[in-house]
């Protein structure tokens, strides 16, 4: 009697079989996350820049973006189905992800800008550098490493949450996980779930490597 195939050899067999699908879903997953982080960065940095010097607005922005993170993602996505402009699909997922991704970026933008040595800003002002120029040439470049760290945290959070997006027909590896969970007990169910989880972990590692590279290339040698 031949040995029963062990679960992991059957997993590799499955992965080999479904390779193209898994790869496509992984790429979709990555694209959704990149789009959401990019939007969250634009919105988050703008919010940070607008509020870092005033107490009340700053606290308000942090409180609101912090509250976003406490909403269970399943509930939020479910809620979006009912909203006419959003509904089922990728658009709702991206909007949700942007909301979840805001806090780390806004927070780090504010912290980074507030940590810039006031003497540096004053000497720039004393040389006749206008407010916007000071922001672009001095404050944002000095805050950049901190902002980038916020983007990195945000990305890691969103990779996980993006999987839930499949619940409302969003793209990405969540599809494997949800369809596996729906068919628990069948031959490929466990393999699908495992493939989804593995894909997400690989993505997380890849994104982190990309951030290390970005940080290396975009941070001035003078503040590294």
């Amino acid at each position: 009697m031949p040995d029963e195939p062990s679960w992991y050899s059957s997993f590799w067999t499955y992965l080999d079989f479904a390779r193209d699908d898994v790869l496509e879903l992984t790429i979709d997953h990555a694209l959704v996350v990149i789009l959401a982080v990019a939007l969250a960065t634009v919105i988050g940095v703008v919010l940070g820049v607008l509020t870092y010097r005033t107490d009340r607005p700053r606290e308000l922005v942090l409180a609101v973006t912090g509250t976003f993170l406490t909403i269970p993602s399943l509930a939020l996505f479910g809620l979006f189905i009912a909203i006419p402009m959003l509904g089922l699909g990728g658009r709702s997922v991206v909007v949700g992800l942007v909301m979840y991704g805001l806090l780390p970026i806004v927070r780090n933008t504010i912290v980074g800008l507030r940590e810039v040595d006031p003497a540096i800003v004053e000497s720039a002002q004393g040389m006749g550098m206008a407010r916007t120029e000071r922001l672009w040439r001095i404050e944002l470049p000095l805050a950049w490493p901190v902002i980038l760290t916020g983007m990195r945290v945000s990305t890691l959070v969103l990779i996980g949450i993006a999987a839930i997006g499949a619940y409302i027909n969003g793209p990405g590896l969540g599809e494997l996980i949800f369809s596996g969970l729906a068919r628990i007990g069948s031959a490929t169910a466990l393999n699908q779930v495992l493939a989804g989880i593995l894909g997400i972990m690989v993505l997380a590692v890849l994104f982190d490597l990309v951030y290390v590279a970005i940080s290396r290339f975009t941070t001035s040698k003078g503040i590294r």
Partner: protein
Amino acid sequence: MNDSTGSAPEAGKIKIRLEGLSKRFPGQGEDAVDNLSMEIPEGEIIILVGPSGCGKTTTMKLINRIIEPTSGRIFLDDEDVTKVNPDLLRRRIGYVIQQIGLFPHVTIADNIATVPKMLGWKKDRINERVDELLETVGMDPGNYRDRYPKELSGGQRQRVGVARAMSADPDVMLMDEPFGAIDPITRDRLQNEFLRLQEQIKKTIIFVTHDIDEAIKMGDRIAILREQSHIAQFDTPERILVNPADDFVADFIGRGASLKRLSLSRVRDVELHQWPTAQDGTGHDEVRRLLEASDKSAVLVLDSQQRPMRWVNAEHLQRAGDGAALGEIGLPAEAVVQPNATLSDTLNEMLTARYSTAIVVDSSSAYQGIVDIDTINDTVRSMRRAERVRLREDERNDEQVSS
């Protein structure tokens, strides 16, 4: 309202005029600067000095409108600049603060080029200017232009800060405790370098410090401020030391005013003594003859460029034996000063080296003469005598007035 007015006596052209300048910060009951009027002559170092909280830094920042005045007017070259675009105004005024505030994320060259870039200079001109300025502040452009601020020492950062403030060749520079965060030895050297530089560039400099010794050393004129930037006295260091306007000024100058006066006289102002010298390589017998012929106990050995090397006396000669070169025996020639050193610095050098003489050399380090401790003593004594005579005259005048 207290009207405090300072006008510079015997001054040349007025570069900056402050007219009834006041500043009240929001939420405060009292003005930080109250109705200050002052005339600042061109090409001089004007020191604003006073106890902490007297408003001296606020006053300085009112001039380039980092702090906007609540009332009053500021004139630069007779032009009312109280309402002009502050960014354009600041590009005409160099600015150095204690923390220096170099931009850490750009190179030394880019730091210095900040204002010329804003003014839209051509690249070649900026590069030339950066190299020129680095050389002016004694830093090798090839070595430093592409470095970052974190790679420099405190003293070097300070130099770059000064170079950056001078980049667009402003007529006016504002300096807020520029040497405050530097160790005493480096500070002294930077102060001397800066004074030498000022002799060439002749900028109008407004210099804030809380240190009266620094004020006396650096200032062409000193404004001693009490709270709310009221001027207690605005005059040359000499006259403030000899003739303090009131008890506040006298207290602020402190005791040891005659010692402080040593900071006012320089080596070039006193008579140098000569000393027997011998070239390195002179025979020992020749040196012994020199010693016998003079009333001094040692000779100063000079190298071929007339630079001081060693002090050698009869005992050294005897102990070393006939073959030894003069340049290798005796004691090292320490306590060497240049003619622009103050007598206070000179005394300091002597005490550090534990010699009773200081050797004076010119800018190429060649021997010029000797200042000894008696010369310094005499200077202090004659200053004190002059002061006593002046006091007595003042008293006599007072008596005549009251009788």
